[in-house]
């Protein structure tokens, strides 16, 4: 997997105290890994710092709550990693 995934998986393992081997690209952060909203903000902070970006969590939450996007779009790790890569690319452009 990508180095982005490895970084994110490491952050989740350390921040949420989840064994690294349980974390896969197909893992749903909430449903599979049991990460609650408070822990997810800690993870977001670590991701923001690691990649120099600002995850648009408020926008994502609003889209999910309004039914405009499924939660999987943001919280399945391979999708989260793709969005991080896109944010990093946009920042570098």
């Amino acid at each position: 997997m990508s180095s982005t995934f490895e970084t994110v998986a490491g952050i989740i393992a350390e921040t949420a105290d989840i064994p690294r081997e349980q974390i896969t690209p197909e893992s749903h952060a909430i449903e599979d890994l049991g990460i609650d909203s408070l822990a997810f903000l800690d993870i977001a902070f670590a991701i923001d710092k690691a990649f120099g970006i600002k995850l648009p969590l408020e926008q994502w939450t609003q889209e999910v709550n309004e039914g405009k996007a499924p939660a999987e779009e943001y919280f399945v790790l391979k999708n989260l990693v793709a969005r991080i890569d896109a944010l990093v690319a946009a920042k570098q452009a």
Partner: protein
Amino acid sequence: MRLEYFEMIDRVTSLDRDAKRIEVSSTVPMESPVFEGHFPGHPLVPGVLLTETMAQASGYLVLGVMGFTHMPFLMGVDKARFRTFVGPGTVLTVTAQLEHEGSGYAVTKARITAEGKPICDAELRFRIMPFPEGMDGQMRAQARRIGLLEETV
């Protein structure tokens, strides 16, 4: 400071919105019911109230920087260190620096000193949410009491 009312901040002495830094002043009261239990005959400000003081300074910083559009709620305290005791009558200087503005959250580093000596420091995290009904006015009133609104609005 009125410890029993959780009014931890006496006065905002500076707010730099560009540098995202606040400095406030607070004087520990000579008497408080808090000191009757902590500790009898040996009054000391509890560490939890020093943490609250750093959180309130940080919270007013976030309010000031964001222009009172949202309310910061304390959600995490990391790396808290209490380096010396604080007794009645101590004049505290509290500083807070906004370290990161995330989406829906903020992170600050805060410290308290007295006569230049370090008292405590911590990294604090806040969830940033819309004001609950009616809280906007209350926070503005508190901010006006400590001189924050004169600086920001």
